[in-house]
């Protein structure tokens, strides 16, 4: 079943010194349960595309549907959880309070809120930090709290913009593993932006390679890796082969400059 469908998507920003075309003729279909990674050089429009899907940015051309609705309708029907590039926790709320925020807004009952906060905190390994304020946590912990916040209300679509950028390799590996498990268990559709080629290959069923200025999709690589992925799959020949293809795609984009 198609969840997200983009056809001939264009987006041009009007700025002081003229228009900036951020996306050009983007065509992409994402099916239910897909794990799609977006990879590409800085400024190529990954964030912009994700924001379009989330209805945070309005395309200037082409069509985009989410669950058959416009992205804006989908946003209003609370179809997705969004994890921003930086943690973006509200500093006046505790970690628990931050995770509770969407639940309050969506009108969950008090008990339900408490239950879900506890559950998602546990999921990201932050139990015991519920009462702490964001600045009392390390960057990586904050990032995990923000992931918990996006998971708490169980949206079908999860959009994640470089969620692990600030983390070291080991923590990143661990969270990658857990994200895969979650995805496997819940069957969510996930859109995931990353700079890291191994991360993209390890996680995705589909890797979208983008090239900059104006942002276009240069390659869509369907992963042949199995759903079940232990960490050491990264040493397999198949993995290295896919990673190589992604790297070539990326490099081609860079050469265009």
């Amino acid at each position, binding site marked *: 079943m198609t969840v997200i469908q983009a056809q001939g998507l264009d987006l041009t920003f009007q700025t002081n010194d003229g228009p900036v075309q951020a996306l050009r003729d983007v065509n992409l279909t994402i099916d239910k349960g897909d794990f799609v990674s977006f990879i590409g050089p800085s400024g190529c429009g990954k964030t912009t595309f994700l924001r379009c899907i989330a*209805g945070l940015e309005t395309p200037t051309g082409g069509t985009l549907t989410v669950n058959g609705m416009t992205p804006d309708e989908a946003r209003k029907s609370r179809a*997705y959880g*969004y994890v*921003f590039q930086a943690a*973006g926790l509200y*500093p006046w709320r505790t970690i628990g309070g931050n995770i509770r925020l*969407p639940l*309050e807004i969506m009108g969950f009952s008090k008990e339900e809120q408490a239950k879900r906060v506890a559950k998602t905190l546990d999921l990201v390994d932050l139990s015991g930090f519920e009462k702490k*304020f964001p*600045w009392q946590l390390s960057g990586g912990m904050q990032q995990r709290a923000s992931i918990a916040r996006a998971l708490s209300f169980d949206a079908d679509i999860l959009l994640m913009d470089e969620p692990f950028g600030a983390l070291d390799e080991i923590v990143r590996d661990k969270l990658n593993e857990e994200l895969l498990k979650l995805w496997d268990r819940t069957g969510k559709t996930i859109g995931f932006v990353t700079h890291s080629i191994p991360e993209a290959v390890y996680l995705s069923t589909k890797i979208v390679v983008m090239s900059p200025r104006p942002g276009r999709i240069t390659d869509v690589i369907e992963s042949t890796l199995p759903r079940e992925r232990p960490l050491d799959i990264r040493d397999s020949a198949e993995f290295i082969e896919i990673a190589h293809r992604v790297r070539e795609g990326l490099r081609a984009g860079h050469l265009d400059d």
Partner: protein
Amino acid sequence: MTLIFVLIVWAAGWGLNVMIARSKGANTAAARFAVPVIFGVTVLAIWEILVRGYDISAVILPAPSAIWTTLTSTTDVLWGDFVQTFLKGALSGYIIGCASAVIMAVIVDRYDFLRRGLLPVGNFVAALPIVGTAPILVMWFGFDWHSKAAVVVVMVFFPMLVNTVAGLRDTSVMQRDLMRTYGASYMQTLFKLRLPAALPFMFNGLKIATTLALIGAIVAEFFGSPVRGMGFRISTSVGQLALDMVWAEIVVAAIAGSLFYGLIATVEKGLTFWHPSQRK
């Protein structure tokens, strides 16, 4: 001779402070309290020495000791004036002015057209000097504290408005987008995001407004008042050459103003503990 005395006292007071400030305990609450107090005491001592040493007339500058005597012997008068000017005039004006400024700010923030139209005009209006507006407001609202409150409202309204508007806008795109991804309503965004984010700015406005409120209420009394109030007493006492009374009122004003400021600053600490400027 007097000058030498002054220099000795100054050197002693300042030296003591330098010692405390450089010592290990400089960050303790006691040190933070002691240093300004020592500074103040030093200044008072120098003042006393100068007045006595140069035999300055009491109708020009009374000695601190004389001011203290007046302060302690006329507490009933001072209290009456304080009630009239501070509790009735300044405080009610402060509350009305700040509250209406916040409401206005929310409206202005909601409608960009208003923000672009009202803020420049507001800045212009805020530049109207109170010494010009006070007589007009006294004419409009009568001689009692109502007109003083009106002057205070006019004085605190724009600083508060400008700060609150700035605060309401001080949310990052990401913080706002987060609310949008939840499909949050305007009211939800206002109460869960904008107002909390605006608090540090609002407290800036509230703190500025504390000093403005007291000054406004006092000055307005110069342009007509009943026969009590701090401004009334100050101006009348100058005419009567009772400078000790003038300074006693000033002391009351400074204490009241500082306590008011301190109170707001304490509330600020409690409510905006999360802001980087409050952490350290």
